[in-house]
Structure formats: structure tokens, C-alpha cells
């Protein structure tokens, strides 16, 4: 079956000739009309629309956005904050960048509708430090919006007011974790908080109820407010509604960003048709479907079982290419949809070296707060580093898996899983390559195969 067309909802204006990131252009394209209508509605109605829409977070966890908003403690009397997670740092992910740089007003409109719906009066956009231009663009856009009364006190004469501030990070992946982000925003070392008791919905920024949402998620809120939650829920597939931007990188002919209805495109359609298949003379070997924290999948493997479709349980028997790119399917076959970063590796890549690269990333980014992740991530990096640059032993694969098993599920935050899953899945899927590596690495390196660590 041929791949469907892209459904450019959030990315409608990305790459559009003549589209600029200033307010005038946004207004010409119907901008802020949805906000205008939204501030005339009841906030609870808007929350309801988001619940009905089934929107799931686009930052990596895929948590239902409406449920997240419902968990907010609205009775404490403390101010409620919105934090926009613009810290896009998950390796393989490159979508929020384009929204911020090329269509910032869509984000601002989504933010304002979210704030109005949740009676938030102050929002912070936490943008990664490596987007200095993006921070400037956002500040300019906010200033433009404020001048036009879309942001600030008394929005569009409604009596409701909300301020947005841009807050730059400084190069730490852990600031993408919601409680790490909150600690960083408070001016402290970004050590994620223990949950319980520090659920952001109850004890978040400055110990006040806080929502933390991804950039893309907030853009979807605007579209939900526009079309209605029910209509939005008909886009995509059940429980995996709406569209999502898939970011394909690595060894394909046409890497890049592509927005599709969730679950309506398969891995094979995405990689072979949309992205043009493997590079000349090469074959696909492995793919990580949801950012580097997701478990790797091996080309050639099959997935069998029963899954729920409607009210029935039906059999599935999939090749890797048959997997629909939605949260539930990817989780079901042992990986995750995550942030939508699809990293493709072909047969020129040594999985041991690829893992060494990934382990170096996680050990560098570990905040160091809790024992398993702090010590385990560095240990795994030292093992794979030694395998590549020093003495590799056949039993190192088993040792790596054993170390990773001691991390996942034992840490304060999901970084434990994020650093353990690559190792666990690489060993599970490519264990043969790890065993053979001590011998295989003695052979001379093929030309054109770059070092990875």
C-alpha cells in the first residue's frame, strides 16, 4: 500500500515560500482568530475539548494532555504556572526548532489558549541554550503579540491577562525532564524531584501547581480549539489521535521532518517511500523509532501477538516495515513512539560503536543525583569505550546488559530508563555482534565508515 500524503497541520507553513515569522504574516494567514474566539468561551470548555481530542504529549512520554490538565490542583489558592518545554534535546528530534524559528506565533497562540483554559497568568518558555536565535525570535514575537494585546494584561479586552517570559537553558539534556526543568527554572542545579510527593500538577514551580507541555503539543491545542476536540480525535487513529511530526535522520536518501496522521503510516512506507530508502549500495540494519532513548529495532525481525482493534482482539504478525508509527503499536512491539525521532542505521554501522556513542551521550548528560544512573551510565560508557578503543571481551555484552538491568526502574526519573534501554535493546537485538566484536574489530576499517566515538 502506498504511503499516505503528509497532513501538515502544525507544520502547515514550514517551508512555505514567502512565509516569515513576524506577526503581520501570521495575521494574514488567519492568526490569533482562534485565540479571539477562545477567550469568549468558558475555560473548562476548552479543557474539555482537549480531553475529548485524546491529544497525547509530543515531548516523548505520550501522556494524555487533557488528563495532565485535569490533575492540576486548582483549589490550593496558589498561582498556576505553564512551562513550555522548548528544551528539544532528545537525539534524533528536530521539530520544535522549526516551529520556534519559523512559526513562533502559532506556539504563542497555543500557549495563550492553554493559559486561558487553565487560568494561568504567567508562562515561561524554557528554550535550550543552543537556540540563541530562537530565543531572540520568540522574544520579538512575544513583544509583537503584546503590542497587539494577544499577550499581557487584558487580552483582547477580555479582562484575562497572562505574561510569557523566555528563559534560556545552558546545555543540559536533563532540563527536558519536567521536574529537572522546574529546578533549573528556579535557579538551582536541575536535579529531578522525587514523585511522590513533587508532582508538578500539585507541587511544581515554586511549589505551585504547574503544567509542563511540549512545544508541538501546545500547537496542537490551538488546532483542537479551532476544530473541536471531537473532530480532532477523528484525525489519526483511536487513542493515537491527531498528527505528529516524524523526524527521520541517518542513513536514508531523504532525511527530514514529515507530518503524518498518527498511526496512518508504517515504518516501511516512511523509510522506503517517503525517505527514499537506503543510501546507494547499502541495506537498512537498525532503526531507533522514538529518539535515542527508545529501544532499537532490527531489520528482519518480526513481531507477533494479539492486539485490541475496536472491541476485538485480533492477531498481528508484522515485519518491521509493517509497524504503524503510533504510540501504542510501537510500545506493543517493544519500543516507543517517544519524541518522534527516527534514527536509521545501515549495514555500514557497527552496533557496538553506535552504542558507545549513545552511552557517551547519556553519561555526559546524567545529572548525577541518584546512584544507579550516575555510576551505571558512566560504567556502561567506559565498557563500550574500552571495547572500541581498547580490549574488547566477548562477555562485555552480557556485562553491559547486567549493568543496564540494575539501572532501569531504580532511579528518581526516567533518565534511568533512557540510558538503560539503548544498552538493553542493543544487546538483546544485536548480541551476536557484541560477542563477535573482539575478533571483528581486528579487521581493517572500511573506507568511508566514520568513527562514532
Amino acid at each position, binding site marked *: 500500500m502506498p504511503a499516505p500524503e503528509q497532513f501538515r497541520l502544525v507544520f502547515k507553513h514550514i517551508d512555505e515560500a514567502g512565509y516569515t515569522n513576524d506577526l503581520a504574516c501570521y495575521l494574514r494567514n488567519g492568526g490569533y482568530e482562534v485565540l479571539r474566539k477562545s477567550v469568549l468561551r468558558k475555560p473548562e470548555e476548552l479543557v474539555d475539548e482537549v480531553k475529548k481530542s485524546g491529544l497525547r504529549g509530543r515531548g516523548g512520554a505520550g501522556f494524555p494532555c487533557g488528563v495532565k490538565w485535569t490533575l492540576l490542583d486548582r483549589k490550593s489558592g496558589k498561582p498556576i504556572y505553564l512551562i513550555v518545554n522548548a528544551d528539544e534535546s532528545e537525539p534524533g528530534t528536530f521539530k520544535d526548532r522549526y516551529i520556534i524559528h519559523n512559526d513562533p506565533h502559532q506556539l504563542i497562540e497555543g500557549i495563550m489558549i492553554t493559559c486561558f483554559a487553565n487560568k494561568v497568568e504567567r508562562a515561561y518558555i524554557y528554550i535550550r541554550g543552543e537556540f540563541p536565535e530562537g530565543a531572540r525570535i520568540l522574544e520579538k514575537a512575544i513583544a509583537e503579540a503584546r503590542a497587539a494585546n494577544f499577550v499581557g494584561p487584558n487580552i483582547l479586552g477580555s479582562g484575562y491577562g497572562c505574561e510569557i517570559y523566555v528563559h534560556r537553558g545552558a546545555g*543540559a539534556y536533563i532540563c527536558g525532564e519536567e521536574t529537572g526543568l522546574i529546578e533549573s527554572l528556579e535557579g538551582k*542545579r536541575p*536535579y529531578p524531584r*522525587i514523585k*511522590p*510527593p513533587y508532582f508538578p500538577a500539585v507541587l511544581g514551580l515554586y511549589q505551585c501547581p504547574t503544567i509542563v507541555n511540549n512545544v508541538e503539543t501546545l500547537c496542537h491545542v490551538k488546532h483542537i480549539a479551532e476544530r473541536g476536540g471531537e473532530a480532532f480525535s477523528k484525525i489519526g487513529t483511536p487513542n493515537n489521535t491527531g498528527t505528529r511530526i516524524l523526524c527521520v535522520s541517518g542513513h536514508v536518501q531523504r532525511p527530514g521532518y514529515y507530518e503524518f496522521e498518527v498511526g496512518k503510516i508504517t515504518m516501511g512506507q516512511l523509510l522506503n517511500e517517503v525517505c527514499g530508502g537506503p543510501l546507494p549500495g547499502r541495506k537498512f540494519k537498525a532503526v531507533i523509532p522514538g529518539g535515542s532513548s527508545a529501544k532499537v529495532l532490527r531489520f528482519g525481525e518480526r513481531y507477533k501477538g494479539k492486539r485490541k482493534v475496536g472491541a476485538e482482539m485480533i492477531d498481528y504478525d508484522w515485519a518491521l516495515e509493517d509497524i504503524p508509527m503510533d504510540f501504542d503499536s510501537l510500545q506493543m512491539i517493544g519500543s516507543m513512539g517517544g519524541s518522534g525521532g527516527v534514527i536509521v542505521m545501515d549495514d555500514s554501522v557497527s552496533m557496538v560503536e553506535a552504542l558507545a556513542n549513545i552511552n557517551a551521550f547519556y*553519561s*555526559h*548528560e*546524567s*545529572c*548525577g*543525583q*541518584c*546512584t*544507579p544512573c*550516575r*555510576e*551505571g*551510565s*558512566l*560504567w556502561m560508557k*567506559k*565498557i563500550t569505550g*574500552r571495547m572500541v578503543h581498547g580490549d574488547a571481551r566477548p562477555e562485555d555484552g552480557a*556485562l553491559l546488559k*547486567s549493568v543496564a538491568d*540494575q*539501572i532501569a*526502574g*531504580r*532511579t*528518581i526519573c526516567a533518565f534511568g530508563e533512557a540510558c538503560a534501554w539503548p544498552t538493553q535493546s542493543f544487546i538483546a537485538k544485536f548480541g551476536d555482534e557484541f560477542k563477535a566484536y573482539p575478533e571483528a574489530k581486528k579487521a581493517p576499517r572500511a573506507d568511508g565508515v566514520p568513527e562514532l566515538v
Partner: protein
Amino acid sequence: MIQPAKPDLITVNIDGKEIAVPKGTNIIEAARRVGVDVPHYCYHSKLSVVGNCRMCLVEMGMPAVDPATKAPVIDPASGKQRINWGPRPAIACATSASPGLHIRTTTPIVKECREGVMEFLLINHPLDCPICDQAGECKLQEQSIGYGRGYSRYIEDKNVKPKRTVLGPRVMLDDERCILCSRCIRFSKEIAKDDVLGFTDRGSYSTLTCFPGRKLENNYSLNTVDICPVGALTSTDFRFKMRVWFLKQTNSIDTESSVGANTVVWSREGVVYRITPRENDAVNDTWMADSGRALYKRIREGGRLESIRALGSETTLDAAVEAAARLMAAGGVAVVGSGRSTVEEQFLSRKLAEAARAKAWLVSRVGEGDKILVSADRNPNVRGALVTGLISALPSARLDALAGEIDSGAVKTVVSVGEDLSAAGLTAEQLRKVSIVYLGTHSNPTSAAAKVVIATLTEFEKHGTFINQQFRIQRFAKAVPGVAGATDDLQALSRLVAAAGGPALGADVGSLWPAISSEVPALGTMSYASLPDTGLLVDGTPWAGLPFIEGPTLHFQPAQKEAAHV
């Protein structure tokens, strides 16, 4: 007195054992009460919870109920309510008792969690045990034996960090040993109110440090050494001096001020090596001031008196007592007792004053209270003097009235129990004019001018009790034998009482106390043997109207809102 309200009790189940604990009790504490050890590093009962060591991971479950009817779901096999065990282990330190909570600590998953954490803590830990002061009281050693896997799989290079860093005048830091539990940082910020410690860099390279140029030098810095679970923070004073398993521990009281922090004196073969705090949740929690720890140095330093002298030459106790008796018989006697004497010594001082028909005085010592564990009253036992009736009003720093009586000739003999009269304002001339009987530990102008000197014991060398600012009577024990040539204070005083014509009284705490409890109304219901280790509150209402000088400290609020000194 109104009884405190009974706290809400909740039943939790730990490894099959049920226990009722007050609502909100931390699970680690609840487990301790049923004899279950939940190993941990970063948790401390007096500090905020961070949950970063992950050693206390246990399985948790709640009883299963039908979501619709709320009826309990019964497991057909056992006939008991089924427990829904959580899919992942959870940290015990961040969990408080809630009704029906079930904990499992002996399952394979918990064993694996502990082995995993122990392995991770040891892979970058230096093999310093042979040269590390913490050996013998090191939680890493204890828990690796108890819960570790027992062998190492680590063949990579260990992280290198600064060793032997002088963090402050009394604390030495070895960053390689640090397990980054953050107890020291939390203590400095939350208890000592000196936010001077922090972590730099990140990940496994995180390092404990002060900002360059700053030091950990507040008066509570050594508490970080106590609570450091490993040998990262060690006491410079104690460094390399003694292995802890050779030391005998004796319960004692800090005499630096009227706070009366509870302590442990560590000694071997008659030598004291260090002092650490002893837990008393009503007085000092688990802390004490650095300045109080240094007091053991007075045992050897500062000019210790080591003999009995009468009229210029060394002599026996009998001869000295007789000489003192002759002086007192001439009349015009004053007794200067001490706020540093024990309750028992103050009782005998009063008896002596009565027998010699003398007025009794006390000298005050005032400093600045630090609102933590050093109060403004630098005498540990002024209230003992009030309770035993030695004095009836608060003392002043100078003995001007006594000086006047010496000048006028009304007072011809002064018996001083450990107080240097020149520090209290008496002139050298007055010291020469009057006959002095001096009982004390260290030489000073008064002991030099005295006609009779009896060397006595420091608080480390005798038994006794003190009454602190809360009117709590607290017991301390003899840690080391007295220096050769010194006489037990109660021995000396009871002999003097008898020699002055007073009653025969016991010369040790055991035989003296019946007399104390029968004659001192506030202590009437007590006996020395039955005093608990955490002390007992004495009814202080007869003295409630006195203008005590202490301000608030940990666990103490002065009765009046205004205090003369804070």
C-alpha cells in the same frame, strides 16, 4: 499537667509483621521498630528527604479493593485480602505510614536492588579502608557486607577526584570517597544555617566543595563528619589517632552551656579521643556544637591541679580537711558554689554552707546564644543550684557584695568550689586577706592564693547530673579515671561537711541520692538509678518568675518573650 493527646495510630505491615505507628511515621523508622533494617545512606531523620541513594528501595503494596464497591478483594488461596504490589520498587525514605500499607524487604527484587546500588557505589570508591578513619563505623562497609554481592566486576579506571582537601579548620574532605548523598549540604543549610557546601560539575564527576576561598568553619561543622556515611568528611582532630573499635563509649553531657546537649565520650585506656553527639529528640536531636567537643582537652591542658595541698605543702585528704575545718571554725565563712558543679555537688555545697553558717554564692557566665545549641548561659547547671536550694536568685558575674564583706572583715574564710574569685572581681589584696579553701581542677589566682587546695575531677572523670535550661535533669557517667592526685568532688565535699559539723552524707552518687530526693522537693520522686538516658523534666514552676537569660535554641523557647541576651 495535661497529658498529651494520643497520636493517630496507623497499622502497617512490614515483612508480615504488623505494627501500629503514629500517622506520618517514616517507613524506615517504622521498620526499625519491628526489627527490620532498611539500609540507606542519604536519609537522615532530622534532615529533608532527597531519595537519591536508592538503597532503601523496597516493595510496596496496598490492599486490593473492588473499584466499584470498595469491598476487599480476597485471594482464594490464602483467604486473606489480596495485596496489589507495585510494579516497581519504591523508596522507603519518601514514604510515610498510611493505613494498610504493606512492605516487603526480603524478596529477590529487593535483594537485587541493594546489590545493584552497592555495586554502583563501590565501582568508583577508592580502596582506602586501611587508611580511612571511618573504618569500623562506615555504612559502606557495613552495607556491602550485609547487602552487597561480595565480588567486583569492574575492570575500568576509577574516577580521580581531589583527596585530602582542607575543607575547614576542623574538617578534612576526600572527594573520592564521597557517595554524593548530600547529607552534609542539607545539614549545613537546614540546621547550621550556613549554606556553604555544594556540588560542582555533574554526573559521576560531581564533587563536593566550598566556593574557592570559602571554608566550612561554622561552629557545627563537625556534625557533617558525624553524619557522613563514609570517610569523605573526617575530623582533623581525630585524624589517624585511633581505630574506633578500640574505643569505649560513655554517655555524657556537654557542659559548654545550659543547653545540655547529650554526648558520647570515646576513650581508651584512660585517654579521651573524641566527643560526638548522642541523640536526644527533646534536647539536641543528633547534633552538638564543635566548641563543646573540644572540651575534653581540658583533662590534660590548661594547668591541671594534681595534688592536695594545705598550708604550703602537699598532704593527705585528712590533713587538708582538718586544716579547712580549723579555718571554718573561726567563723565568717562564705561558700562560693558553681554553676558548673553537678546537682550532687551543689547539694553538698549547700549542706556545707548550712553547717558553716555561711552565705552561698554562685558566679554567672554569659555569652552570646547562637539560637542552635549554645545558649547565652555558659554554666551548664545554674538550675541545679536553684533546685537544690544552694541559691534562690540568679547569680551575677561579679561577687561585689562578697568583696565588700571581705573588706569589712565579715568574711574571713571562703570555700570556693571551682570558681576563680579574681575572675569574679575580687582583687589580689582581697585574695590575700581572706583564707581560701579551693576545690577545683585547674590552677588559677584563687588556687595559688588558697591555704587549702584539693584537686578534683572534670566531668569526664566522675558521675553526676546536671539540670539544663529546660529544667531537665540529665545524667552523665565517668568516662576515664581521674588524674593521679585528684580527689572525687563528692568525697571531698562530704568530708568538709562533716568537718564543719554537718551531717554524715554519702560520698558517691548512689549513696547520696536518697538524701537528695528526701530533702529536695523538686527531686522527691526520683532516684539516680532510674533516671532515663534522655533525662527527666523537673517541675520548675517555683522558679518560673526568675529572669533567666537564655533566648530560644533548638527545642527551647524561653518563658518570657523578652530575654536579656539572645
